[in-house]
């Protein structure tokens, strides 16, 4: 007698196995990305970094988790955050500014956790990478080319306000970016016949006090350096009030500065830096070979404040209009 039951069961089981195998989902482990925001000025960089992941199909809280720490230029805080990322074995670290990237570079040493950085000046010279073309140690990112283009700010200022002869720059010499910022500005000023009034003012209070003491300023323009002190809200407000009071053009550091009255800003697009960083990070996370990725240079964009120009009696030429973007036009 032929017993068909075992045959039917076996074939049924095989079919179910095939069905399960073919219908099985490819559930991937959610990714954990640690983010170190060096200073809050670059908050839009980390936001666009996260947004770019969402645009690539990741779901925050489900397929990807972001653990963002606001460093506020506090090196100890950033060091501790990076060490925690290592302990918690995140899949990738995204760091902004030299302070954030430096802290992560030190913490990630000896691990295979990749790091992507943005808004970092002279990454080779500051030891964050060992090569710009093929950096080792799972580290790559976007180089802030401020030193390449910051001289252009003086050139554009003289183009927009040809009568400017002396520019005041409140500086914090000890701040890491200052050494990348100051030399090209000095060169451009010399070439364009502009004198610089560089004053060491490393706290917001010092800046406020200095301006309060200036009843009749000796300078006819202000340049905001990439230092925390003049970006602090009270110091920044004091600078802008002073500039408005004395009808002085102010060169900003970011497009955000323009809405507070800066004449123009020739800066890197922080949003785009974040998007590019996310693109590299996504590539690294899916790249099992962990090949070295070259460091990308950031490219500057020009934004001109039409209202500020009008208030100062300046004309924005067609060439500059073509070169950059004019904002707040009425």
């Amino acid at each position: 007698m032929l017993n068909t039951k075992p045959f039917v069961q076996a074939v049924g089981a095989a079919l179910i196995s095939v069905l399960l195998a073919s219908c099985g989902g490819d559930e991937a482990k959610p990714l954990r990305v640690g983010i170190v925001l060096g200073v809050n000025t670059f908050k839009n960089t980390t936001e666009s970094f996260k947004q770019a992941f969402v645009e690539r199909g990741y779901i925050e809280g489900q397929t990807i988790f972001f653990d963002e720490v606001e460093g506020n230029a506090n090196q100890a805080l950033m060091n501790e955050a990076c060490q925690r990322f290592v302990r918690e074995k995140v899949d990738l670290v995204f760091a902004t500014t030299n302070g954030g990237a430096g802290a992560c570079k030190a913490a990630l040493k000896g691990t295979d956790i990749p790091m992507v950085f943005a808004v970092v000046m002279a990454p080779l010279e500051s030891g964050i990478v060992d090569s710009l073309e093929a950096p080792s140690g799972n580290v790559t990112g976007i180089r802030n080319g401020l030193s390449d283009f910051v001289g252009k700010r003086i050139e554009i200022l003289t183009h927009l306000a040809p009568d400017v002869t002396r520019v005041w720059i409140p500086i914090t010499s000890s701040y890491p970016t200052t050494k990348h910022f100051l030399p090209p500005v000095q060169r451009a000023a010399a070439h364009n016949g502009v004198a610089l009034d560089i004053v060491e003012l490393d706290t917001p209070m010092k800046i406020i006090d200095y301006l309060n003491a200036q009843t009749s300023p000796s300078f006819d323009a202000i340049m905001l350096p990439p230092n925390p002190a003049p970006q602090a809200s009270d110091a920044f407000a004091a600078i802008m009030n002073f500039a408005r009071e004395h009808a002085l053009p102010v060169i900003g550091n970011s497009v955000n500065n323009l809405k507070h009255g800066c004449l123009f800003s020739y800066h890197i697009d922080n949003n785009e830096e974040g998007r590019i960083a996310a693109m590299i990070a996504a590539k690294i996370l899916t790249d099992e070979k962990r090949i070295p990725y070259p460091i990308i240079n950031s490219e500057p964009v020009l934004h001109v404040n039409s209202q500020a120009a009008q208030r100062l009696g300046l004309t924005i030429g067609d060439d500059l209009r073509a070169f950059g973007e004019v904002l707040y036009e009425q």
Partner: protein
Amino acid sequence: MSNISQTPHETKLPRPGAPPRGLSLRVLLAVSFAGLISLSALISGGILTWHNFLSERETAIHSLAFRAEGAAMEISNLMSAMVSTMQTTTHFLHDGAAEDKNFTHALTHILGKFKGFQTGSILNASGREVAKVSRIVTTNELTFVDYLDTPMWSTVQKGKTYLGSVSISKDTSAPVVLVAVPIKDNLGQFKGAIVGELSLRFLWGALSKLQLSTGHAAYVINHNGRVLGHSLLVQVLRGIQLDEGLTKDIFSQRSAYTARETVNIDDQNVLLVSVVLDEYDWAAIYEIPVTEAYLPAFRSVVISAIVMLISAFFAAVIGIVIAKHLTRPLQHLSETASRIAKEDFSSKLPDHGTLEIQSLSMALGAMAARLETVLSDLSKAKEKAERQSLQDGLTGLANRRRFDQYLDREWHRAVRAQTKLSLILMDIDHFKLFNDHYGHSAGDECLKQVSIILSEVVGRGTDLVARYGGEEFVCVLPDTDSKGAKLIAENLRTAVTCAAIAHETSKVADYVTMSFGVATVPPRNDTSPLELIETADQALYQAKADGRNRVVVSDAINPIGNIVAR
């Protein structure tokens, strides 16, 4: 006459009780049906699956080609607009006064309109840069170079637009592509050129607008295979150079898109579709991982395979069911035939199944019916023969053979039960004289009458009356002592006497009389029934010797001649 001797016709039959050997018809049918239907499902499904796979693959390639053409169009439009703007600017330059201010204004205009330009230069008729604007570097830091002996210069001198390979900008150190447009005056005389250093990042900006999915890549290569623009910016900066053979292959087919599977720079197997931009001698390429490209095809194959397997499974089940349906009546027939072989004719033969099976069933039924009749007749004949073999033909009493069997059986029973066994041996007195006087027919009739009397008198079912031979009769009385046996013998003698069968020539009386020898023994293993017969015979002899028509009893087996008469 033929002398060929014919061997008897032999039918080879399997040994009764031996298990049948060979393949089961059910298995054979099941395997055949299931196998054939499954094979059919697999072959047809396989063909369809392959067809679907090719169709899905073709669809994937078409889809990729569409995207590659989109990328090509994006790049082409961008480059056209860029070159067109540069050409328009040249008109402005030769129309207006060639002053530094105008030069700078024109270059700033170009750099403003196309963010991809790192620098813009104006070359005079000698190939010397006379004006330059950089997006990044300040004017005082710019280098002014001589392009006189470069391929670019020889191209623009011929009035053609130049599109260079990847080089490193002397001013920004960034990888750039040189684009140059000749400047001519109103008479068409060559006056110089506008040169732009196009950042590779610029093409990335255009390609990144394509909204690529993860794992997809769109890029542009020049005729050397150098990647000029890539949807992933880092890939541009890595200075990727496509394999020479692949590059040649891509540029050899300019008429339409081409598709091929290859391994990309990241060692991934990709499906790559390329479209050549003839105007610039570039090619736009769109690639996606092979696994993703063929995912719909693979899904189709998996679904088809599952459907095939399910079809094959159900085909197998149906095959088995059909085989069962076909073979069940045969199995029934086989079982019924087995029961018939055991002379069990009660089973009902199947009246369903195929015509052949029904016909076989009917034939088997007819054969069974005939067999039942034959067996019944045979049984009756056998019973009759058996009965006849144990019965005396004349008197109807048990014959000598039956007597021997019965005595032997009762002897052993008595040995086991330790009971007594008696035997009466009797003889018609002067029967020879009866025959002589009345004839043998009358003699036979006399024997019949005596037999009837003996049978009637010996009433117990366990007692046996038999004709011992001639006019001698014998009666076996199990579990009967000598007293009982003597009583029965006396009853017999009286009954025969009372029957008063005429016997005029008898020397004892005018009627038939009989003499009786009775022997009774408790049987033992060391004795035999023969001794009981001999003892009874001696008693009979004694009865005859004593004058006949009497009963002589011997109580025990004693040596011959030592009869204790009563």
